[in-house]
């Protein structure tokens, strides 16, 4: 394959033209997809909130109604300084709040939980957002793999009593799964602390904007 040697400006012009052309095309595509992508991101958030707060009980979009509280120290490990509290309202009245809580003590590091809590302190739902537990052992905390995590729905700090907020091996009431104690122990502890966080901060979570 032979090719003539051309002056540099020829190459530069060619490259420049292509860059410009594709730049414009990309800008156009970005413009077209911007709105749908934003919508999807919102949907994602709503979906994950929807798992811990039933859609039927509220009529707002909790993603847009938030307050920020300082993150409790526990759980540490790179958690942001503030926790975003999502609030679900019906007819303007708060019917549930949801927030992320970092459970410490997992086998592979902290476990991110999403808790949905009714104003009376009752759990509407809990989900694990992300974790690094041993595949096949600890990952049964995912709702997709096991229904274990759904058993917390309806419980609160007083129910069961504080000394029973433990896995069975530690004398509490929650099952651990066979072969793995550490992960459920961390999750149970995390949920309990998450509820305590609600108990101490509920007024600030509920206050009107």
């Amino acid at each position, binding site marked *: 394959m032979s090719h003539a040697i051309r002056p540099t400006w020829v190459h530069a012009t060619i490259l420049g033209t292509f860059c410009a052309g594709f730049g414009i095309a990309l800008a156009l595509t970005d413009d077209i997809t911007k709105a749908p992508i934003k919508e999807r991101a919102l949907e994602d958030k709503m979906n994950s909130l929807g798992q811990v707060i039933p859609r039927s009980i509220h009529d707002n979009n909790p993603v847009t109604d938030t307050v920020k509280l300082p993150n409790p120290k526990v759980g540490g490990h790179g958690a942001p300084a503030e926790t975003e509290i999502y609030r679900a309202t019906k007819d303007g009245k708060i019917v549930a709040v949801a927030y992320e809580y970092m459970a410490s003590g997992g086998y*592979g590091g902290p476990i991110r939980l999403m808790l949905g809590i009714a104003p009376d302190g009752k759990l509407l739902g809990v989900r694990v957002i992300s974790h*690094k537990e041993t595949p096949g052992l600890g990952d049964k905390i995912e709702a997709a793999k096991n229904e274990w995590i759904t058993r917390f729905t309806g419980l609160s700090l007083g129910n069961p009593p504080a000394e029973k907020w433990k896995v069975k091996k530690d004398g509490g009431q929650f099952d651990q799964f066979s072969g793995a104690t550490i992960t459920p122990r961390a999750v149970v502890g995390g949920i309990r602390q998450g509820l305590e966080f609600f108990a101490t901060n509920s007024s600030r979570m509920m206050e009107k904007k």
Partner: protein
Amino acid sequence: MSIVIDKSGPFTHGPNNVSRTMFTVLAALAPATLYNLWLFGLPAIFLFIVTMAACAVCEAACVRIGGGNPDRALGDGSVAITGWLLALSLPPWAPWWVAVVASVFAVCLAKHAFGGLGQNVFNPAMVGRVVVLVSFPLQMTSFVTPKPLFTPGSPSLAEAFNITFGRGFSLDGISTASPLGFIKTELSKGNPVSQSIASVPSIGDMMIGFHPGSMGETAVPLILLGGLFLMWRKIISWHIPVSMLATLFLMGTLFNALDPARHAGGMFHLLSGASFLGAFFIATDYVTSPVSKSAQLAFGIGIGLLTWIIRTYAGYPEGVAFAVLLMNALTPILDQHFRPRVFGRTRKGEPLPVRGDK
């Protein structure tokens, strides 16, 4: 009289051969194995038989597919070592299919896919163990406290059969963590090592094997005895075991001194887990370890270091198998870098300078 002149000398040959070497290793393993089979009872015996048989079948099948002679391949004893070490590195009450899957991966994949005896890069037994450890973490981390044969707690024949071959047998009620696992769990609960170490079996109990663990992880003195026997028979040299154990001990002691709440001591690291089995019988595997002595030292140090790191920071409580496999991958490089000095040459391979005035 048929006189042959087909090759160069020498025309006398030492008495050793491959199968003699292999069977010496098995002999060295025998006391610890017998003791452990007694310690963990009938299920352990079943599992041992299953593992050995599965490995032998895999070997015969692979050799036959490759067009070789299965009898000769089985006769050299290498697969017996693989099966034996594999059995020793499984929890004694693991179900049969764990052993079978491990055997298939060990023999077919780690050994024969690489070209058979002498060609494999990774230690077959450890590949088998790691595959099942990663695949079946539940079964692979369910240990039982020793229940010696002929003692009241030992399972009967029927029970033992159910443990090894039964489906859905649950160890939940009786399973416990190995000392390494226990320390790790306690640490994750926020209990410092300095406190939890008080609850693990005493050094004495650890020595005689009365603690939960894989078969080969217990009975340290007998393993040590076997290792010394191998050194005496010149099957292995001291380089890998000593450098590995010394590194592990030093790391343990050093970090324990720096932060006793976070790190277990050197003695604990030495006596728990597969430290001794790994040092004397697994890391020293001929095929997958370096050939020159200085490279072997580096290899041992690497395993010791990685074992300590994995035990301390990684997701699994025991790291010998992973450490060995990782260093296996480095073996060719170590061999390249640590060649012995050639007679009459400098380390760089230049001829030595002639002494000026002499």
